[in-house]
């Protein structure tokens, strides 16, 4: 199967391979796909809680060259963007950038899902933290005295 030069480049020199600490409150982790389908992507983002800018991103992928390239590209693109900007990344952008053939479009869809899953996870963590903070304030009304 002929790969585009960009896919080959990402495969040979994947950007941002690795892991961020899952338990860090500012890290969102997206794990999408399934081994039975031959495609699993883990994409993690580290978000600045004040500016909502994605300061770091890491990925690991079990999948074909196009899947690896799609997720590597995804980490490149989300870095430096705000959460809202990252949510705007569409799989069609990935297809265009990597010149993915029709049979590989689903790899780009999974990468878009991975971004959204990581953001969703980060948002849930923020909400949970807020709820916990509110609960502890309510429980200790005299803490500020």
């Amino acid at each position, binding site marked *: 199967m002929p790969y585009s030069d960009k896919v080959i480049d990402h495969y040979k020199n994947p950007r941002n391979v690795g892991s961020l600490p899952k338990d860090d409150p500012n890290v969102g982790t997206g794990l999408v796909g399934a081994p039975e389908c031959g495609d699993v992507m883990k994409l993690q983002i580290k978000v600045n809680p004040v500016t909502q800018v994605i300061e770091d991103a890491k990925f690991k992928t079990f999948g074909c*060259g196009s899947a690896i390239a799609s997720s590597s590209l995804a980490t490149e693109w989300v870095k430096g963007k705000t959460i809202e900007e990252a949510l705007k990344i569409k799989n069609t952008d990935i297809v265009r950038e990597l010149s993915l053939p029709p049979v590989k479009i689903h790899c780009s869809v999974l990468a878009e899902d991975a971004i959204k899953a990581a953001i969703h996870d980060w948002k849930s963590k923020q909400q949970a933290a807020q709820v916990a903070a509110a609960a502890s304030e309510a429980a200790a009304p005299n803490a500020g005295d």
Partner: protein
Amino acid sequence: MAVKLPIYMDNHATTPVDPRVLEAMLPYFTQQFGNAASRNHVFGWTAEEAVENARAQIARLINASPKEIVFTSGATESDNLALKGVAEMYREKGNHIITQVTEHKAVLDTCKRLEKYGYQVTYLPVDREGRVDPDDVRRAITPKTILISIMYANNEIGVIQPIEEIGRIAKEHGVLFHVDGVQAVGKIPVDVQKDGIDLLSISAHKIYGPKGVGALYVRRKNPRVQLAAVIDGGGHERGMRSGTLNVPGIVGLGKACEICQQEMPTESERLRALRDRLKDGILSRLDEVYINGSMKYRLPNNLNLSFAYVEGESLLMGINDVAVSSGSACTSATLEPSYVLKALGVGEDLAHTSIRFGLGRFNTEEEVDYVIERVVETVNRLRELSPLYELAKEGVDLSKMSWKAE
């Protein structure tokens, strides 16, 4: 390392034409170019003689008579002719065919078509080693059974079926026995008498012959097998397959068979040693690598391995100067993983991680050593990229995880 790249290790898909085969074929393109059916001049007679010589070479390889060899465009056509030809000819006797789930698509898809025409087909399962149980064959036979079709050796996993036993059962019950011999003929001893085979499909391009030509062995004695032709028009090949004979191709097929017969004893041992070297080299350097299919009943030149946590197509990309193939869905046009591995009970996750190596006449020890290095290095690199490997190393049981599949 003195290896010439890229290295070809996909000899179950096709083989290069042996230079000796090519040399034998060439005169029949421009000098002795006659139509073998031209009965009235020397051009035709020369071509006919070459064809008859090839028939004899093929017959010798499988212990048949030259009269029992029918030439086709390849084994896919041979499989079609055997199945459809018997189905039509023996329709009065019955309409039931027995085959098995890891057959080549040339057999399975033909069976599907026959089912549309009202035939009943039983697809027998295989065990975890990839083998059919002869007792299952026996139990499946009914008074309406007219044909059993079981491949000699499988193209993906190289596993060899218990052909002689099945041949005996077929004979006991008066049922014709077709064998797709594509991967076995020329590689391991195939004897249509000893094995009780009534129809045998042969492919030239799997045994260092040219593409576009094959043969079907059709038994003439005990019993005399009759076939309805699939291709009509002129009555060539005793009415079984019309069409001008591909003389150069046939000469090539004949020569390829002759070379295989002469070299099989030494070649099969040489390839077995290379295959074992490849297997041991990889298994000693990597963990969580699984062999798909029986090692005991296996073609000497085949190896099919699953590399856990590493998807097949990405592995092929990483060893892109080595030509092999994979059972991963990503490598198939239809995005379905290998049905052969599925039939063995290999989980879909491991099917996606499988690689098939097919060694051949022109592979060397240096090439095997190079491939071992590339495979080990690429698997290690891809495992570093793999979220599944990471989870497994953390002690997570992947089979218990629930996945958000798309």
